[in-house]
């Protein structure tokens, strides 16, 4: 019996350590969500308890009012328009480009493929300023286009992910379709695209949540309040020049991570696989 009790003790210590870590990891998030239900004085009353003394929903009402005559409804709509359009675009382009690189022989394909791998390492911050100058010329400032168009034309990370997936699809499928008289586009549309679904789900998840949380681009390109995304609008709560309603800030901050959390909990299997197999950063 000594062995089993030692085993139990081991397990207990193990789970104790893990649980302490769970608390550390999740405390700031819980604190944010719980604070959104507290009164202004309750947030800083001096006790560390997470549970509000009384549940208070007025922060959500006040926060939703937004800024400059635009409610958070407008900001959420803007964020959804950008994230969803850009994601649909990048899914389409990633599958098309991946098929082109993985399955068709054409001159220059090797060179262009290495160019694409090279740009995976080129950070956005490097081309942030010249891109701004180009979009300034094109009169795209204060439109959603800078957030949607480059993203929709294909993100090298996503293209690479789909290429790796297409390479696992047996080539015989293409050949038999070709014999049956299928065109190249037909092979893409009828065979490769349906089989790529798992890779495209991963692309959709990461694309949505990178676009949703993006801050640097909206802050550069959107200066009219009616165009603000949720990230940009949230920043106004931290504006040092105005009196901040902390409760309202916590309420809207909690709402802003809700879509991402929902995607995360529903599709977490794909996320874990996506990162473990391709090294996509989270």
């Amino acid at each position, binding site marked *: 019996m000594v062995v089993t009790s030692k085993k139990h003790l081991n*397990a207990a210590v193990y789970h104790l350590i893990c649980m302490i870590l769970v608390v550390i990891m999740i405390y700031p998030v819980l604190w944010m969500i719980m604070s959104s239900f507290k009164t202004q004085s309750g947030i800083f009353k001096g006790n560390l308890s997470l549970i509000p003394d009384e549940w208070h929903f007025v922060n959500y009402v006040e926060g939703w009012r937004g800024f400059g005559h635009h409610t958070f409804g407008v900001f959420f709509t803007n964020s959804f328009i950008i994230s969803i359009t850009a994601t649909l675009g990048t899914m389409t382009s990633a599958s098309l480009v991946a098929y*082109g690189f993985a399955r068709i*022989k054409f001159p220059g394909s090797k060179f262009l493929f290495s160019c694409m791998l090279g740009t995976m390492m080129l950070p956005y911050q490097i081309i942030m300023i010249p891109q701004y100058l*180009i979009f300034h010329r094109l009169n795209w400032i204060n439109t959603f286009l800078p957030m949607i168009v480059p993203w929709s034309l294909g993100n090298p990370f996503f293209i690479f992910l789909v290429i790796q997936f297409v390479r696992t699809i047996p080539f015989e499928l293409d050949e038999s379709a070709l014999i049956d008289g299928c065109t190249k586009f037909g092979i893409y549309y009828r065979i490769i695209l349906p089989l790529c679904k798992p890779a495209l789900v991963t692309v959709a998840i990461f694309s949505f949540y990178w676009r949703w*949380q993006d801050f640097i681009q909206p802050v550069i390109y959107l200066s009219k309040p009616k165009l603000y995304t949720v990230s940009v609008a949230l920043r106004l*709560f931290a504006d040092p020049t105005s009196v901040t309603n902390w409760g309202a800030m916590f309420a809207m901050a909690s709402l802003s991570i809700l879509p991402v959390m929902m995607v995360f909990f529903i599709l977490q299997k794909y996320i874990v696989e996506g990162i*473990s197999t391709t*090294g996509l950063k*989270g």
Partner: protein
Amino acid sequence: MGNTKGYNLKSTIAGYLFISPWLIGFLCFMVLPVFVSLYISFTKYDLISSPVWVGFKNFQRLFLLDPRYRKSLGITFLYVVTAVPLRLVFALFIAMILCQKRRLIGFYRLIYYLPSIIGGSVAVALVWRMFFGSGGPISLVARSLGIKGNVSLIGNPKTALATIIALYVWQFGSSMLIFLAGLKNIPESFYEAAVVDGAGSLVKFFRITLPLLSPVILFNLIMQTIHGFLMFTQAWIITRGGPMDSTLVYVVYMFLRAFQFYDMGSASAMAWVLLLIVSFFTMIIFTTSRRWVYYESKQGI
């Protein structure tokens, strides 16, 4: 597939049509900006009047006449050399803990990964600002420990950067998942053989786990180092580079030069120097990796 030289015209057209979305984006929003940026970095340009050629003046000004720039370089290096190793060590440590067959592992993995999912958001940066600011939970703890006055780690130039480093380390989840995948690839038989030879857990860790994991460590190290140099949102929301420029990381200062001072010339010069710095560090990591990364097949990357 026999003809390696003769390409079929129809395939060529089809190939270029299929990759055209990426090709257009690559030429218009990557190649063109890179050349524009190179040109602008040698000019004085404020968006209103047309660019004026000034030669190397922007670069000279950065390194010789701008103490703020040199300060921001120093802060960025400090940030990268502390935050990146801390995150990786933490990620590896947790991955080792989770690489066991026990109950609740899936739950732990999910919770530890959660901060990585939302950590880049403005919402979390705001929470961090409140959490470590005056009146937040940390300052309450400090007060209950008997420290007088209003403790704000965010407002103190000595500790502000540490809170941002803490935020970075807190999001160790994606590195952890990559380490976990790597750990699962190490055959159990290696450990069993080592145990037969009388190896303890430390020996097993340093002689088996670390060498076999080194390619994954290399990948994580490079990705996280690049990522670390580019940090913007957190510093911008939490401290705006302050107090007293103590968190003025590279991209924040670049952003200020471009969109606050409308000094596109020196901001572009900064972007180029950043690219050089990032490439330099990536190269250093790669070249030294030959000494410490173990490849089973001896093929290299």
